[in-house]
């Protein structure tokens, strides 16, 4: 065993493209001051980098206003900003059982606090949400629908455009979690009637950890839930009301923003469609190999169209955590075991509470890596 085979890119892409790391370090070394807080040129230059990145993000998601690109720590942070800032006492929220705890826990918290009620729409046998079921769950007091664009367990790409149309017809804001899809699957906020998009930089966007954000459509208003310095209007004790400062407080993660910007450049050069096709192809190769092993159960149909490149499995009589430990210790293959912070998916798939093992190829995975993973799983099953 000489080199790690990293198949946990759905958790975070690793390694990052060398061009991203090098450009991030070089730029930060040169311009790493507090952006927009000082009157000196270097601060203005740092602020320009921030604004350029807002513009890239807005174009990437088809958002009309770059000033409504708000930086956050990650998708979970952005989802909290959106959910807690949109709902009001007495509101109802519709979401799905496919969601990550980054959605489920804020909703559960708000319900426990007596602020909202919510309903979760189940997914079908293949892991897809039916837009009709979303529409049918909407009540007169529903203010928000929250849906993931790609499941982090099933890999299924959800029909966001159709869901957006239904939400628009009902006058309800659609918030989309793109943690698993941004950089792999296109999304057009304006054309698809999406009210807000939460994204993270460290997955398929190939940026570093610690940077993500929320993109807010001009038709949607989000109340701030954290307050502090914004670098503007300092005389006021009331938090700045204009975007993006409305939802940002404190010095921005400039290093992360620079890395995100270079990650977007990398994605743009590669092409979202070709990256997805390549990773989905590797997932298909993995599925074909694993289906030949009797003791393995594959969740859904990851090799089918409308899937990002990830495959979740269980092996008969093997605890998923032990299976992952064996893959790492004996074969040098890094995967993610457990519930993947999506417990309701595993309940629906009958794999709760132990969960499963998720293989997720990334930008630097090869067909040889997948062959090695198949051979390792076959060896474990035979042992």
């Amino acid at each position, binding site marked *: 065993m000489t080199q790690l085979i990293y198949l946990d890119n759905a958790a975070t892409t690793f390694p990052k493209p060398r061009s991203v790391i090098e450009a991030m370090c070089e730029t930060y070394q040169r311009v790493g001051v507090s952006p927009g807080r000082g009157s000196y040129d270097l601060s203005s230059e740092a602020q320009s980098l921030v604004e350029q990145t807002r513009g890239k993000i807005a174009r990437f998601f088809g958002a009309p206003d770059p000033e409504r690109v708000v930086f956050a720590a990650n998708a979970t942070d952005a989802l909290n900003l959106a959910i807690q800032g949109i709902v009001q006492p007495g509101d109802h929220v519709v979401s799905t059982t496919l969601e990550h705890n980054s959605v489920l826990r804020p909703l559960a918290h708000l319900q426990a606090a007596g602020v909202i009620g919510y309903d979760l729409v189940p997914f079908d046998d293949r892991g897809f949400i039916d837009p009709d079921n979303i529409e049918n769950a909407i009540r007169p007091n529903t203010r928000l629908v929250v849906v993931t664009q790609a499941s982090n367990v099933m890999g299924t790409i959800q029909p966001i455009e159709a869901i957006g149309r239904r939400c628009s017809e009902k006058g309800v804001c659609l918030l989309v979690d793109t943690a698993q899809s941004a950089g792999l699957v296109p999304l057009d906020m304006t054309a698809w009637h999406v009210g807000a998009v939460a994204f993270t930089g460290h997955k398929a966007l190939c940026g570093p950890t610690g940077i993500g954000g929320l993109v807010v459509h001009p038709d949607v208003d989000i109340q701030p839930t954290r307050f502090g310095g914004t670098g503007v209007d300092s005389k006021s004790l009331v938090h700045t009301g204009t975007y993006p400062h409305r939802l940002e407080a404190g010095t921005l993660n400039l290093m992360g923003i620079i890395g995100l910007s270079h990650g977007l450049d990398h994605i743009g050069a590669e092409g979202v469609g070709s990256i997805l096709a390549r990773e989905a192809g590797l997932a298909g190769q993995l599925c074909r190999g694993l289906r030949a092993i009797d003791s393995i159960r594959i969740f859904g149909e990851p090799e089918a169209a409308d899937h990002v490149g990830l495959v979740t499995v269980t092996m008969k009589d093997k*605890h998923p955590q*032990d299976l992952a430990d064996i893959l790492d210790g004996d074969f040098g293959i890094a995967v993610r075991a*457990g*519930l993947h912070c999506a417990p309701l998916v595993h309940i629906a798939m009958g794999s709760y509470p132990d969960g499963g093992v998720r293989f997720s190829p990334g930008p630097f995975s090869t067909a040889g890596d997948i062959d090695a993973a198949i051979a390792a799983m076959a060896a474990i099953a035979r042992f």
Partner: protein
Amino acid sequence: MTDAGPSRPMSGHPNRKVREIDGRRIVFDGKGFMRHPEDWSEAVARHLAEESGLPELNQTHWQVIQFMRDYYFYHGRAPMNRDLKSGLNMTLMALEALFPGGIREGARRVAGLPNPKSCAG
């Protein structure tokens, strides 16, 4: 099997249980891992092993248990996968097969190490 009293929820900690094994009151978490590895004894190990479907611990089992405990108390954490493989001179496949509960819920639990704080549960 050594004497074991009934399992009781721990006041103020609904996910913890206190059990009396071999005359000791031992705190376990909701998944049956010991909260305090220093409460462990060989008698406790034999009891936990028997509960897991392993009526007798052989020399290899004891080597695994002792390695895990020595490593834990020396390094302040459980051995990583590569440490287990090199330290025990056996594959993790073999280690997994050695204990009915496997590596984490078998060997680690019988060795009295705390529950690994991963996203598994």
